[in-house]
């Protein structure tokens, strides 16, 4: 056992050389390679993370787009639905209007036909009644229809109630016009005198009386003073006949009234 200092010195130098050699050929290259690998792994991880982040962002973007498209789709569908509802309503309204127009046209036509029919009927009935009355009266007592009408009128004037008399009297005081006796036929002088006398005795004493002829009265006679009027007219009976005929057409009239209320 002993220490050879020359060997010691040589070994120190050898060791230092070995340190340098291993540093040069072992530690540095290995550490560099490991560092590079670590860096590469870190880079790959970072890259993966970035890609994942980008993928996540892309997914988010697509989700946003999908949501936007869904919203847009809902809006479009809502608009289409609204438009369809409006169009449906419009079509229904148009159809209803068209039906209403057709029905109104039909009702108007029916009403006109009814009016026309009633007018014709009235004239025919009046003429028929007049002819029948003439014939009947001639056969019964050789009396004229007009004379009979005037007599009937005179009787009515004589039996006139107090209220009507007061009304006519008041009308005569309010106006300066003369009392007018209107008839559809010509009244002879004798009958005129009878009429004057009855009026002066039962209605208004001393009032001026004018006689006139008018075709407005269908077949009758009337006394007019101011706004007051009193008379007998076959048209009254015909009006009653009209009323009855109209009552017979009541279903048509009721349909027309329902349609008017609907409008």
């Amino acid at each position, binding site marked *: *056992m002993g220490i050879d200092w020359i*060997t010691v010195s040589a*070994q120190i130098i*050898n060791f*230092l050389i070995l340190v340098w050699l291993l540093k040069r050929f072992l*530690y540095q*290259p*290995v550490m560099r*390679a490991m560092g590079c690998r670590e860096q590469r792994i870190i880079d790959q991880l970072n890259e993966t993370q970035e890609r994942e982040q980008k993928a996540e962002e892309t997914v988010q973007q697509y989700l946003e787009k999908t949501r936007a498209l869904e919203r847009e789709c809902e809006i479009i569908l809502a608009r289409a639905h609204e438009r369809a509802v409006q169009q449906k309503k419009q079509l229904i309204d148009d159809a209803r209007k068209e039906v209403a127009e057709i029905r109104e046209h039909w009702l108007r036509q029916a009403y006109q036909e009814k009016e026309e029919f009633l007018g014709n009927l009235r004239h025919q009935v009046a003429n028929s009644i007049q002819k029948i009355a003439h014939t009947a009266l001639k056969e019964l007592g050789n009396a004229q229809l007009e004379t009979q009408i005037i007599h009937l009128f005179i009787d009515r004037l004589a039996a006139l109630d107090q209220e009507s008399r007061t009304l006519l009297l008041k009308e005569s005081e309010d106006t300066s016009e003369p009392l007018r006796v209107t008839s559809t036929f010509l009244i002879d002088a004798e009958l005129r005198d009878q009429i004057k006398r009855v009026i002066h005795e039962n209605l208004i004493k001393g009032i001026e009386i004018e006689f006139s002829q008018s075709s407005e009265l269908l077949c009758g006679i009337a006394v007019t003073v101011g706004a007051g009027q009193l008379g007998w007219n076959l048209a009254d009976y015909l009006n009653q006949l009209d009323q009855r005929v109209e009552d017979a057409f009541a279903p048509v009239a009721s349909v027309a009234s329902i349609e008017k209320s609907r409008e």
Partner: protein
Amino acid sequence: MTINPDAIVFWQWGRVSLNATIAYTWLVMALLTLISWLVTRNLSSGTGISRWQNLLEVVVTGIRDQIKEVSQQQPGKYLPFVGTLFLFIAVANLLNMVPGYMAPTGSLSTTTALAICVFVAVPLYGIASEGPISYFKRYVKPTILMLPFNIIGEISRTIALAVRLYGNIMSGTVIVAILLSLTPYFFPIVMQLLGLLTGMIQAYIFAILAMVYIASATSVHTSNDGQRRNK
């Protein structure tokens, strides 16, 4: 029987002689350098690496982790010195299996040289870490009376380092030599195997102790820094 490789001289010129210690040291150096060069000339930084590269990476990473664990510092600047200590001693001891080879670590000259290297490296690392004044102040702490004891401690631990390695390796060789004369064939082989284990353990102990000494020289700086910061 010669158990001291210093005594085996291959060539001599005056006082300078090429003995077995130096020759086998060169062999170990050549072997380490050659393997390192062969493996590291085609290093791959990718994921596909060769087995040899994997081996070297495992060795280097293991040494780094040990240094980091002991010193609690970044191992970069200590790796060449401590790592070379470990690799040199380990390979030198492992080659003991080869017939005719004599481990240079079985020479007190080699272990002394290595211990001197540690003896010099400790203050160098300490000074490099915290500066000369701060480092040398350690020797007069807690009082200047401790200066001789600290110096004796430094020298004695260096001697212990050298003698421990030398004693263990040399004793292994001696034991095998004695057993060969007493019970040849089988039992010496077992002792050789035990010698491999002992050799690896001694390499580990030497490197770890060197690192502990260096770490104690540099950790003073760190703890002082910590105290200063706390104040």
